[in-house]
């Protein structure tokens, strides 16, 4: 049966479906912008971590495991001065921040975030002091950064001591740190 509403909507849709030509110069602008960015590699471990994160999981914790999980407590500590240079090149006005995670059972941990393009190879954390304590120092310019910890190459942890942020584009939880112009964090 002929429906005038459907016919009208169909005409509008057909009209709007006509091909649109965007200025091909846009390609050049995009390529110029990304040439200055690091290669979005390091995807293998990170991609696996994301796939793992986005699947549903059922976790069973033993009492000991529960204690270990409870011990996985992280803090972000501002260091006004530091003696060693971290892996990423510091930018102008950046200050050093130390990220700390307590994870007694981990064998390796990477700090990933906006500041290293979520590249799991760029900021490995090191054991410091106790066997359970992992640290990494990163220079951060004023701004807002999302970050997370990648444990043993496959387990993705938000920082339990920092605000959790839901990424508007990707929907997965991470933590967020805001560095003020004075160098303080929140």
């Amino acid at each position, binding site marked *: 049966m002929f429906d005038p*509403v459907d016919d*009208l*909507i169909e*005409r*509008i*849709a057909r*009209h*709007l*479906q006509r*091909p*649109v*030509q*965007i*200025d*091909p110069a*846009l*390609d050049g*602008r*995009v*390529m110029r*912008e*990304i*040439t200055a*960015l690091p*290669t*979005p*590699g*390091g*995807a293998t471990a*990170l*991609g696996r971590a*994301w*796939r793992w994160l*986005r699947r549903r999981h059922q976790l069973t914790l033993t009492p000991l495991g529960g204690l270990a999980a409870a011990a996985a407590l992280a803090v972000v500590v501002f260091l006004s001065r530091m003696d060693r240079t971290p892996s990423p090149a510091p930018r102008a006005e950046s200050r050093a921040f130390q990220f700390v995670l307590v994870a007694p059972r981990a064998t390796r941990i990477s700090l990933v975030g906006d500041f290293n*393009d*979520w*590249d799991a190879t760029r900021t490995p954390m090191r054991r410091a002091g106790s066997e359970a304590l992992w640290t990494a120092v990163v220079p951060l310019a004023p701004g807002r950064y999302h970050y997370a910890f990648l444990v043993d190459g496959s387990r993705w942890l938000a920082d339990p001591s920092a605000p959790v942020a839901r990424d*508007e*584009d*990707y*929907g997965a939880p991470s933590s967020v740190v805001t560095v003020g112009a004075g160098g303080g964090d929140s």
Partner: protein
Amino acid sequence: MGIHSVGTSDAALVRRVRTGDTGAYADLVARYRDRLGRYALHMLGNREDAEEVLQDAFVRAYRSLARCDDPERFGAWLYGILVNRCRTGGARAARRARRFVHDPAALETAPLAGPDGRAEWDDTVRWALARLPTESREAFLLKHVEELEYEDMARLTGAGISALKMRVKRAREQLQAMLKEAERV
């Protein structure tokens, strides 16, 4: 998802970019430029805003390519980024419009013509589309122009399927009313 690629697969291009072949990203940009540009243009109603948002979406996608966990569905993933950027860009454009348009009556001055004249019809459709609430416009375009399934729309927008169906229904009703009004005058 109604987003497909031809020739070298998206996944192959994504893999090349991830291994340092930045030039492969140009192929992806060229592949999706016009298709995504159409959505941005209809959403924002302004070519300059659309190109700005589109460029931003491509750059964001590149920076986050390590987080594209299914390279075969790069197009759908990129589309999700664009939909979000259009929301932000749309809000910015609306603020700008509020700043510079001081005559509310001017907004009511629609191009009044029937569908026989192509240019007039184009103006009328654009005018009606621009008057839809952002959420309704987004839902209408994704359903009727991009021809996505409701499940895919829900994944892209984060809205529930029932809510999306309602938005599409309202958009259809509002468009019908506006077009009828335009044809009467």
